[in-house]
């Protein structure tokens, strides 16, 4: 693989950009791999990458029924933060944030990580107490967050209306290290690095069945034929239940649609990410100038990758109150993704009842921010059989009542 650099740009500039090679190969599947990862989204590709980088396991295939990063990786609002309440969450999300900080250098691919800061607005007394508690918890966890007053907040976000009639802004939880990254680039960067290590990224290859013998996985049946493997990683977000059923076990997950929308591009007006959980909306400005807006999830199970129309109205209505200038914006695009929700709103990174099958799912509405940490931890789990980052995220925690309860801490927008 040719490295990307300023010299590469200069060289190609002199020869009409004819020398750029494809970022990753698109091979036909081999008969057998040591590890198959199902799902070439961010989490799946990151898992494969760290399997190769940290454990030298490179006989790996990442198979994807659609196109690379075309699921939730390409459908999220690109927000990155690690200000979680519970210790196990803070550990894995902060690992992810630290990896994001050097990801562009690590992958030799510009993921456009922008640590512009992130504020979660407190708009009720309940939220004030909740976020002040989170600030305390974060300090104990070694995650730098702080409480900001409405006046400080107004300086950071001049377009905000802190005196809203129904939900005035009473303060905020501020994580300066939080921000955004280019979501497609994260998938592309990992795919390029995986391909460079000799791994096969196989797109347009849908898994139709999981083959087991004596309680152990032996391979998968796909639209491109049977492929054998020693270990199988399921990293398919909203379709996890479908894949788990093929392997003969169940997971405590429900799939629902979450949607987002973007406005027309405008001049720079907001250089932080703002989340307003009470009124159910969050917003940041992309490098192109579009306001990227995240909304709520549907309340019913849904695999259609399109959300209910009324959520758009609810989200935009809430944002118009908090950011009055939004009322003049035209919205350009709206889309949905299928998120996998667990009972405690925390992910599952776990061994399964079938030997050799590992599952990484349940990231619900907040998976993008976790991609590098999730991949790092999942790779350790698959290579060594255990990982300090994943032990609390076991799928059997629900039976024992050992929840990692982020639903109380994070509300809706995750």
């Amino acid at each position, binding site marked *: 693989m040719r490295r990307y650099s300023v010299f590469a740009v200069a060289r190609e500039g002199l020869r009409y950009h004819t020398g750029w090679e494809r970022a990753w190969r698109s091979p036909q599947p081999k008969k057998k791999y040591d590890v198959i990862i199902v799902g070439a989204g961010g989490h799946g590709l990151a898992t494969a990458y760290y399997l190769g980088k940290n454990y030298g396991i490179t006989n790996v295939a990442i198979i994807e029924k659609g196109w690379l990063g075309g699921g939730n990786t390409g459908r999220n609002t690109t927000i990155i933060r690690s200000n979680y309440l519970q210790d196990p969450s803070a550990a894995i999300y902060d690992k992810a944030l630290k990896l994001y900080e050097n990801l562009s250098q690590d992958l030799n691919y510009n993921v456009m990580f922008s640590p512009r800061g992130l504020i979660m607005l407190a708009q009720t007394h309940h939220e004030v107490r909740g976020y002040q508690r989170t600030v305390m918890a974060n300090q104990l966890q070694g995650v730098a967050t702080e409480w900001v007053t409405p006046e400080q907040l107004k300086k950071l976000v001049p377009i905000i209306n802190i005196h809203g009639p129904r939900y005035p802004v009473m303060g905020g939880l501020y994580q300066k290290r939080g921000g955004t990254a280019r979501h497609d680039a994260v998938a592309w960067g990992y795919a390029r690095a995986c391909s460079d290590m000799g791994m096969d990224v196989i797109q347009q290859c849908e898994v139709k069945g999981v083959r087991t013998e004596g309680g152990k996985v032996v391979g998968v049946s796909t639209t491109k034929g049977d492929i054998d493997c020693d270990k199988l990683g399921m990293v398919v977000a909203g*379709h996890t*239940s*479908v894949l788990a059923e093929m392997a003969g076990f*169940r*997971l*405590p*997950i*429900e*799939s629902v649609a979450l949607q987002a929308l973007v406005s027309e591009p405008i001049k720079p007006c907001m250089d932080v990410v703002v989340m307003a959980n009470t009124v159910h909306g969050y917003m940041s400005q992309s490098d192109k100038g579009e306001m990227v807006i995240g909304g709520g999830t549907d*309340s*019913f*199970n*849904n*695999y*259609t990758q399109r959300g*209910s*129309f*009324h959520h758009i109205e609810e989200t935009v209505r809430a944002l118009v109150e908090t950011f009055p200038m939004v009322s003049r914006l035209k919205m350009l695009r709206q889309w949905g993704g299928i998120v996998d929700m667990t*009972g405690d709103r925390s992910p599952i990174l776990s061994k399964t009842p079938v030997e050799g099958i590992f599952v990484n799912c349940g990231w619900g509405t907040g998976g993008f921010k976790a991609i590098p940490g999730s991949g790092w931890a999942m790779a350790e789990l698959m290579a060594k059989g255990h990982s300090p980052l994943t032990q609390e995220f076991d799928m059997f925690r*629900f*039976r*024992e009542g050992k929840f990692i309860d982020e639903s109380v801490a994070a509300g809706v927008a995750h």
Partner: protein
Amino acid sequence: MLLLQCPYCGVNAEETELAAGGEAHLKRATVGDSDEAFEGYLFMRENKKGVHLERWRHAYGCGKWFLAARDTATLEVFGTYPAQTTEPPADVTENIRAKYPDWSWKETA
């Protein structure tokens, strides 16, 4: 927008008029049941890409709970029926089998 007919008052209600209540026909785990049974009752929900039987409440209408059979892959509605039932009625089952001939309800399977 999802439209469901309330089987009590007959209104074709839009989803903003309704509140979703999750999987239908759950059997409550009780004293003496195993941890697995409680885990199943509390957390293990049907999450099929296909037929889903679910509870809804006509929240901004007559206020009553009813049940619906819906396709989660297409949002097609196979029918709605009163909540005082332990299994989907024959007409709903027929509608489902017209599209999924092999479909069988887990309790009767």
